């Protein structure tokens, strides 16, 4: 009997073409805008807008702030969540559903609600916290990153045998810190990297909290350029795309295992 290889259904072709056009056109249009001179109808193509971006001091200033913020958020998140999730998996598995439930809370308290509460709660706190991105914004971003970090790390810890690794390490005389850093951490490296890339993508695109709390991060600069200069904004937008895409594709590359990408709701919008 001949093995019959089914052909693609016509309706499937139509749906996929429609989706492809919808997803592709805005990317193409952004590229098209970024290559235009500052006049409608001028001939294609010029790298003028990219030069504008590279020579813009505010661009470098704000992207530096956002990038350092992302790194700070990643470090605080990992310091906070890795020991917690490790401990929960090792000693108090009953707490795991509690943590999973808490990771859903940011869905109910989205950034726009969170920032209202944070501004109210921390009004009047010292200047170094309330008026500095490294204080106020970073603490808020750790909460934003919490669901991604939790689900990513949780999947990582579930994939390894926490008990055996810990017992082996301890019976050889290792201290808790040695066990955590030398034994556990290398084994959940992929999950931690995945969490870090997600956090990077979220922080580099976060607009809501920064705008309401009046901090000048990269997305705020992008919005300012959007409002004032259409064509350089194309180049800047494309760059912003590439940051998000770079972070997310790295995530997919390091985390080919299932589960590493279970968290999908982001904070950038």
């Amino acid at each position, binding site marked *: 009997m001949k093995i019959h290889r*089914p052909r*693609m*259904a016509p309706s*499937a072709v139509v749906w*996929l073409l*429609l*989706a492809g056009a*919808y*997803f592709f*056109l*805005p*990317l*193409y*249009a*952004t590229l*098209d805008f970024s290559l235009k001179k500052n006049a409608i109808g001028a001939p294609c193509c010029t790298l003028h807008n990219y030069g504008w971006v590279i020579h813009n001091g505010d661009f470098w200033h704000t992207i530096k702030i956002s990038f350092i913020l992302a790194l700070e958020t990643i470090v605080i998140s990992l310091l*906070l969540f890795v*020991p*917690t999730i490790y*401990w929960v998996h090792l*000693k108090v598995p009953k707490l795991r559903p509690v943590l999973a439930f808490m990771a*859903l*809370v*940011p*869905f*109910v*308290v*989205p*950034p*726009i*609600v969170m920032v*209202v*509460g*944070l*501004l*109210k709660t921390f009004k009047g706190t010292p200047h170094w916290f309330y008026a500095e991105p490294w204080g106020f914004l970073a603490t*808020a971003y750790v*909460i934003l990153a*919490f669901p991604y970090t939790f689900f990513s790390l949780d999947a990582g810890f579930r994939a390894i045998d926490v008990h055996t690794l810990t017992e082996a390490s301890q019976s050889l005389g290792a201290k808790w810190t040695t066990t955590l850093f030398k034994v556990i951490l290398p084994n959940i490296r992929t999950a931690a990297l995945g969490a870090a890339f997600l956090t990077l993508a979220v922080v580099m*695109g*976060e*607009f*809501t909290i920064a*705008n309401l709390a*009046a901090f000048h991060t990269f*997305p705020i600069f*992008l*919005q300012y350029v*959007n409002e004032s200069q259409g064509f350089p904004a*194309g180049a800047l*937008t494309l760059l912003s*795309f590439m940051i*998000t895409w770079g972070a997310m594709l790295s*995530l*997919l590359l390091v985390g080919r295992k299932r589960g590493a990408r279970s968290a*999908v*709701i*982001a904070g*950038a*919008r």
Partner: protein
Amino acid sequence: MATLPFFAYTLAFLFVPAASVMVGAFQDKRDHATFSNIHLLFQHPYIDAYWGSLRISLVTATLGCIVGLFVAYAAIRDGTPRWIRSVLTTFSGVAANFGGIPLAFAFIATVGPLGVVTTWFRNAGYDTSVRWPQFQLFSERGVELAYLYFQLPLMILVIAPAIDGLKREWREAASNLGAKQWQFWRHVGIPVLMPSFLGAFILLFGNAFAAYATAYSLNQGQNIVPIVIGNYYTGNVLDNPHLAQALAFGMFVVLAAMMLVYIPLQRRAARWAK
């Protein structure tokens, strides 16, 4: 205990601020208890902002769910090459995490007044802003069109495992027993997919309901709750912060109600996801 720093942190930066919004919603300017802020939410213009948010969320969640389901099914079903599926899920993983200011600009460049697609039509002698569909990007429909750019990928990501759960043996068993295609969908396919579909709907609804940056960038006058809240803080009109807190509290109530429906649905959907 080793979990203490974590609980202290979430208490200080998540639960206390969230609680302060709830308390503040019921206080007047001198911190006395009052229902007047909540009462105001049901008055013009605030109730209109809630209706605006609900409309945009319902429209984009409905369209996102239905179109996303068909696109995901088209990519997964037999006959479609495997690479299409992996390209689509990879792309969706990226696009679902992407939105805000860059997304708004991408749509301005595409279907804005000077956008690439708008220009194509205009050069062909057809002005889409005057004749059908009379499309304006800086309007509710424009915001909805842009939101779908992250709603569709989210739906594809969430529903793909459920479609995978429709086992080929079930279809073979059904057809061996003489079932027609529609009978398979009516008695097996749709009932199995339904909990995942409804769960995804709630996820998409909340996703659009909470969104701020994309709408802000497209139209700062868009009458939806996040933008009204934002105007209180960015527009120097903060004479009564408790009203902003009440507006935020209203959002919380809507999203919490969604979550209460979502959790049992999620449990039901997990039954077939083995």
